[in-house]
């Protein structure tokens, strides 16, 4: 056995950037021995849009249409992070109205729900389970319908801004949201059947892509990946923001730290998000302003300062490091996406010994999002 | 006074305008205030224009009167009656002018009672309306110039 290994020739394969199994525009340069990967290097740069640089020459308000574009499945977390950092640095955080905080929490949870639905479909899709991803995307579309009526846009919402949100909830929104949640819930057992009930999925997901527990803290792993190790880490609990401290929910954890456990965390968090949205809508204030009184956004300046704000995105801890210099524009904004760790350092470490067919499921399970890596 | 024909009425009206013109001319000569003097001179010109209009109607070049319908303000009725002095001002000149137009209007209105046929009545009505229009215009100038802040 050892002998054959030594004699076999290592083959180099570029996995991506155009590959259906890749989670976005990136590529992994891999070295194969047979069908086993021996080494891998993550390459990004295929969709670098220099957002951080662009924001250095834009007014603060003009940065909102930019940050949401960092993440297609979940733009709202980015909007919230920028808003919250600027509010903290300018001192406006004290004036954000109660209703705005509730609506923001609602939007953040809706976006988590949409993203989780999408990635769960990705889990199945990466293993060639055809129908499930289509259903998941269709379900996500129902969430987008609600986003459309709430924010005026389906994908890029540009809704959470400095001081609050841009519009009030439309008439009858809660009822329609409830209807959407019911529809999603009614389809979930079926999803369970075709994904978690599938022998193919179970066989390929269980025990594959195991992240050792001792890497958890040192590497800064977060989100479903760390929760699938049985470690209850969730920014919504660790440093609660907006209205999360007032909501009733438990951190979802699974044991096993494999692809299956991560998918299961996501599956259970879909239900968690549905429950949270119901709680939020039940407690949504009827009256009151939905945005603080804003200064003239064309001339607004923020005093010198720096901060790091974070939120629990569907992928893990999303953070914004924001530096202001007293001018009308950002000095520096640096986006810390969970994929930066999951998609480069962690992925590269997990690759050796993985079967090439499992690379795509592995990347999906780490929820690697290239735009977050290169911004 | 009785008129037998439209021509007679119009001749009379022309003479009235000429009289008014001579009156303003005299005022312009006598007054010492430069603004009043210029105003009266302007009025001489105005009366000449009226005269020309009447003549045009008489010779058939113009078919009738056409007032702009300037709304009445009844200013003339309220304001006092100035007398002519050498140092008469524009304000007093304007009052005199609007009073003169009002008098002319009342004269034609009065003459209407003596008109024998409808044709004549109509022409007198036209003349009266014309004078009323002049009065309104004078009032309007007064309002703009004198009562700028009232």
């Amino acid at each position, binding site marked *: 056995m050892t002998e054959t290994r030594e004699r076999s020739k290592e083959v180099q394969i570029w996995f991506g950037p155009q590959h259906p199994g890749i989670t976005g525009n990136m590529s992994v340069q891999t070295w194969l021995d047979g069908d086993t990967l021996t080494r891998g290097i993550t390459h990004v740069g295929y969709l670098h849009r220099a957002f951080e640089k662009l924001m250095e020459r834009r007014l603060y308000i003009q940065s909102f249409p930019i940050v949401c574009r960092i993440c297609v499945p979940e733009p709202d977390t980015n909007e919230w992070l920028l808003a919250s950092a600027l509010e903290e640095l300018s001192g406006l955080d004290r004036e954000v109205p109660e209703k705005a905080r509730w609506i923001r929490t609602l939007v953040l949870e809706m976006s988590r729900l949409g993203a989780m639905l999408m990635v769960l479909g990705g889990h199945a899709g990466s293993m060639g389970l055809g129908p499930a991803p289509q259903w998941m995307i269709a379900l996500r579309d129902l969430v987008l319908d609600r986003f459309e009526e709430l924010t005026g846009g389906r994908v890029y919402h540009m809704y959470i801004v400095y001081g609050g949100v841009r519009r009030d909830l439309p008439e009858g929104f809660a009822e329609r949201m409830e209807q959407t949640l019911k529809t999603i819930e009614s389809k979930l057992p079926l999803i369970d059947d075709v994904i978690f009930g599938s*022998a193919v999925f179970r066989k390929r997901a269980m025990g594959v892509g195991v992240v050792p527990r001792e890497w958890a803290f040192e590497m800064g792993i977060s989100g479903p990946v760390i929760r699938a190790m049985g470690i209850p880490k969730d920014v919504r609990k660790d440093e609660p923001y907006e209205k999360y401290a007032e909501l009733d929910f438990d951190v979802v954890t699974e044991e096993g730290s494999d692809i299956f456990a991560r998918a299961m965390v996501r599956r259970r968090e879909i239900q968690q998000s549905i429950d949270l949205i119901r709680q939020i809508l039940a407690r949504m204030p009827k009256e009151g302003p939905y945005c603080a009184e804003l200064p003239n956004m064309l001339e607004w300046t923020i005093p010198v300062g720096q901060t790091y704000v974070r939120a629990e995105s569907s992928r893990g801890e999303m953070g914004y490091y924001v530096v202001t210099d007293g001018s009308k524009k950002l000095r520096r904004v640096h986006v810390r996406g969970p994929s930066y760790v999951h998609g480069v350092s962690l992925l590269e470490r997990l690759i050796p010994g993985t079967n090439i067919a499992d690379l795509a499921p592995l990347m999906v399970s780490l929820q690697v999002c290239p735009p977050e890596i290169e911004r | 006074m009785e008129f037998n024909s439209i021509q007679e009425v119009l001749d009379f009206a022309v003479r009235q305008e000429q009289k008014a013109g001579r009156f303003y001319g005299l005022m312009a000569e006598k007054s010492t205030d430069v603004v009043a003097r210029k105003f009266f001179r302007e009025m001489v010109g105005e009366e000449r224009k009226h005269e020309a209009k009447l003549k045009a109607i008489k010779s058939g070049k113009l078919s009738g009167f056409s007032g702009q319908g300037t709304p009445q303000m009844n200013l003339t009725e309220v304001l006092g009656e100035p007398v002519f002095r050498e140092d008469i001002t*524009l304000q007093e000149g304007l009052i005199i002018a609007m009073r003169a137009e009002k008098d002319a209007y009342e004269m034609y209105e009065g003459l209407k009672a003596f008109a024998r046929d409808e044709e004549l009545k109509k022409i007198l009505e036209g003349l009266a309306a014309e004078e009323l229009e002049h009065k309104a215009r004078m009032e309007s100038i007064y309002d703009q110039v*004198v009562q700028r802040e*009232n």
Partner: protein
Amino acid sequence: MSLKHVLQPFNAWVQAFSKPYTIPMKDTMRPGADRYRGWHINDVEKCVGCGTCADICQNAAIDMVPVKDPVKGDSGLRPKIDYGRCCWCALCVDVCTTGSLGMSNEYTWVEKDPEKCRYTPGVDAKPWDGSEKGWRQEEGFSLIVKDRVPMPMLDPKERIKTWAEVVVGYSVEEARKEAARCVSCGLCVAACPAHMHIPDYIGAIRDGDFEKALDFIYDNNPMPEMCGKVCTRRCEGVCSVGIQGEPLAIRWLKRFATEQFEDFAKVLHPEVKRVGEGKKVAVVGGGPSGVTVAYYLAVRGFEVTIYEALPQLGGATFFGIPKYRFPMPSLEKQVDLLKKAGVKIVTDHRVEKDEFRRLLEENDALFFGTGLMKPYKLGVPGEDLEGVIYALDLLRDHHVGKKVEVGESVVVVGGGNVAIDASRVSRRLGAEVTIAYRRRREDMPADDEEIEDAEAEGIELVTQSIPLRVEKLENGKLDFIWGPAEMVPPDRPGGRPKPKLIEGVENHLQVDRVIVAIGQKGEFEWMPEEVAEKVVTSRGWVEVDETGMTQWPGIFAGGDLVNSTADAISAIADGLKAVEGIQQFTLEGLSVSKS
């Protein structure tokens, strides 16, 4: 792993017979949500072309393009959107000062020619024009600040006991906060008769650079502290922020900037251009127009002398405007700068016919801005009775320090700023005051704020009242008799509606004084006949050409005598025009015609 896990995926096949999620293509043309951000619409009549939409567009997708001639309050520009760049963030809609820009909920548009995907909403017709739905501005969210920083004022009950300035003035924080509301569109510049650099000095105040602000201000206004306190502020009338909110407090900001400095000469650094060296100009009348001519000619090296009949320069702003609005030290500061600029000032000196002829001989050009110094009379019976006085006389006597008495109650006839000034002065002299005005409140030429202040001070306003006559009563008081008026439409569109007396009704008001403030006129007795004959019109005004020159070559005029608006800033604008006219005239080697 059990058989269940092998079989369960076949549930997917069962779904093949259920109703699909996907919608057939023919049904996809559903409308966007009620507030969908689709293609733009613009109500071009409402739009004033302020350009804030273009300023906020982070993609630079919006060009402001001319669609009609610029007028005061409308730049004539309209946004043209490049859909190759637009990201439908709708910040342009949210920042729009007028609320004219919106987005329809239409999201599909197929076009072969990419050039067509650039259009001017509201100008280039589109199927979604007039769309009821889509993204619009909403109450509760604004990217500009609609509320003005309130100006601290003395309490009305207190201020009628003193002559102290009613308006306290902004603090540095308040001024910078107010200045930060400006969107720098510049519509105000068009409306200001002097075309002051308004967005620039407001920007300097916002940035805390008050010296720079003063420099911008003095660049075309030599009496800014006066304007900062009493200007009629046409600028604020067209302020784009004021369309949906309160206009920028442009006047108060100018006031703030000028109040930061004790001595303007120390902070102003005019570029010295000695183009007028050796040329002499006489200025008759030291009002705002004369001061403007004198100052800017002096900094250009001309030798300028101002002749003023009253003891102080300032014209109507000196003798007409009460000190609780424009205190003497403010005026003196500005006059002081004039002296430092080298202007010779001769006060208490009335130029008469012969001297005028001599000045014409001795100077290269002559400017007069002698203002409207005489009141028009009421023109009703009884106005010669003792106790019927003129507001102009009252104000002048009061300001030059003569003792004036108004008794216990007065009626002020008129609705302009002079009437309001006379009322508020009378109130401070202890009288109960009624203002009788012929038209409606909204027709009053006086500044709105002034009217409000007057009312707050307990002055009563009786509108649509036409004075009929004044009679003397046995108790020594005057009986002011007036009749009610109805309003008839104006002669021409945009004109003032007219009051028409309703005959047969008489109202009485017992007063000690009737103060007449219905209008003012110029006087020309001091002017040589031959000059007056040439320059004066039949309405009592002076006509000038575009360089400020009268019919008499070399004689220039400006101020209330010339313009129809009769306010200080228009007088300053006239002065600026004459500065250029005089410079041109004298430097081209022409001299005052002796004919």
